[in-house]
């Protein structure tokens, strides 16, 4: 694909690799870029395992970002030790609500969740644009779509080591581990997976299928919402910025997280390295853009191709296994 764009592919890969892992700073950037992918991806693992397709990561990130921003603006005097957990929880609640709505619509009104989550994305993006032009806009002469600098006590603390790496990375990995325990080591997770595997049998076995669907999307949205909070409070400008459209804020993590999760085989722990890989592609893509003037949109296109290949290969693998089985049998 690079070749078609008139760039030297080898130079391109070298450039991407350097951008992704070339130095401690680049590595830290990759980790920071991977975080929202991991959080959304973990949410995707929960939803997909429960048989619910959540395409609403974008909207859930935004909902989490808005609620956490409002929380921090409302409580500027709280010390960081209280405010940071509070804004992260607010993010989870915001995203959780934004996920629970399409969940409830699916469970109780049979609304296709793929369509409703996409529509919830549009609503959230427009609402963000409204807030940042009106209620939450920074006072002053320049009318940029952004909030004022948020209270310093709500900043995510930097990790030691002198890079830009902040607490968000730890939070993301902790959420992934928690999701693993939720899905594979708890009765709730057992129920969610069972509903995803066979809703009819689960209903017959007395499981509350409808409630499980709502819970799955709420958990899924909550993970994305935490990503929203981390994107705001871990950002270098410490504001919620809507300039350049909602996708500029979310960095398309709501979609790219799906790719990471699929690549990680819908397992929360395997999603950690998968997200890091795609985070590397994103930072590498930026480097590519600087070095060879190839737009970073290439990465979104590539992600689409990856999704298609992963999905197609799942069936292919099964067929091959069957053939192999027939040969040995």
């Amino acid at each position: 694909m690079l070749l078609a764009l008139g760039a030297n592919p080898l130079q391109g890969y070298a450039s991407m690799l350097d951008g992704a892992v070339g130095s401690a700073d680049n590595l830290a950037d990759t980790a920071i870029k991977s975080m929202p992918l991991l959080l959304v991806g973990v949410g995707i693992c929960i939803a997909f395992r429960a048989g619910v397709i959540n395409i609403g990561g974008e909207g859930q990130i935004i909902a989490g970002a808005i609620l956490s921003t409002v929380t921090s603006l409302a409580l500027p005097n709280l010390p960081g030790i209280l405010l940071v957990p509070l804004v992260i929880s607010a993010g989870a609640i915001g995203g959780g609500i934004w996920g629970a709505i399409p969940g409830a619509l699916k469970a109780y009104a049979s609304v296709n969740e793929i369509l409703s989550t996409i529509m919830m994305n549009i609503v959230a993006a427009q609402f963000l644009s409204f807030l940042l032009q009106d209620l939450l806009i920074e006072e002053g002469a320049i009318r940029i779509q952004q909030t004022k600098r948020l209270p310093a006590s709500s900043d995510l603390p930097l990790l030691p080591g002198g890079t830009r790496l902040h607490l968000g990375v730890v939070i993301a990995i902790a959420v992934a581990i928690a999701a693993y325990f939720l899905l594979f080591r708890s009765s709730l997770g057992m129920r969610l997976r069972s509903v995803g595997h066979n809703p009819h049998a689960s209903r017959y076995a007395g499981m509350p299928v409808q409630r499980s669907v709502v819970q799955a999307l709420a958990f899924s949205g909550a993970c994305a919402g935490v990503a929203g909070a981390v994107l705001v409070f871990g950002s270098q400008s410490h504001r919620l910025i809507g300039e350049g459209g909602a996708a500029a804020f979310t960095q398309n993590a709501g979609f790219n997280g799906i790719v990471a999760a699929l690549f990680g085989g819908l397992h929360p722990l395997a999603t950690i390295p998968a997200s890091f890989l795609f985070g590397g592609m994103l930072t590498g893509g930026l480097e590519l853009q600087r070095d060879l003037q190839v737009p970073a949109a290439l990465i979104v296109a590539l992600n689409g191709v990856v999704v298609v290949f992963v999905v197609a290969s799942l069936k292919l693998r099964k067929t091959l296994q069957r053939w192999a089985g027939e040969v040995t049998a």
Partner: protein
Amino acid sequence: MSDFFTVSVIVATLASAVRFATPFLLAALGETIGQRAGVLNLGVEGVMLLGAFAAYYTRLRAEDWGLPSGTATAVIAALLVGLLMGAIYSVLTIGFHAEQGISGIGIFLFGLGFTDLLFQKQVGTPLPVPGLSRLPIPGLSDLPWVGDILFNQSVLVYGAFLLVPIVSFMIRKTTFGLNVRAVGETPEAADTLGVSVARTRIIAILMGNALAGLAGAALALNVGVFQQNLTAGQGFIAIALVYFGAWRPLGVMLGALLFGVVSATVLQWGTLGIVSGAASSLTAMAPAILTIVVLVFVSKRVSTPAALTRPFDRSQ
């Protein structure tokens, strides 16, 4: 608000509503054919974007390539891109039995990223192209109000609305339509009777994707420009319209017109200054909220084609 309720403004709004309805209608008709055959194509949005870019770019550059520069070339380019994507989607879903929901999302992401990439690389600044020329129908276009709304439109608009009875006839009265419905309800039975499930579904997918490409062309040539994420969810709304229309072309058309009216009204209010600045973001939510409301009301009442999203495998 009083500016809005004048005859000339309302006529202009309704005329533009018919134009806005056209991409919804084309894409939703295509999706209807596919879904009746049991194939859910969630990649419509991506195919629309690819079709829109193909039409826009061809319109912009056809002369440099020594091709006729009219809209016909642009429309053909969009159709070909649609067919190509249809072929790819056929290989994925019929050949590899890929999960239809997720592979559709893959196609959407590919279309979103790839058109953005091509646009930045090949065009850069949003150069406008001439829009679709109007073709007033002699006699009918002179009718008061109705003439301007319905009979002073472009060929693409007439074509889209003419497709409604054609697709309806095709699904209900032709052998191919019968096959489509059979493989969409009980592919096993259709297979037993000698209908090729794969071939019927592939033709339905190709038709659906060609129409999605055409929908993109209608959109790009109507606004006369391309930009990143030009479709802004219209492809997904088109899928919702299929539910709204209960898999019937006439119902789909009514839904498309409803969304055309909403989109045109939102635009007109912006132009007249009835809503401006931040409030325009709130009115821009209208189509998305309307889609959710519509889905809430129709989803429980309609019955989906029984074999929708279910791959057919003879060996099972």
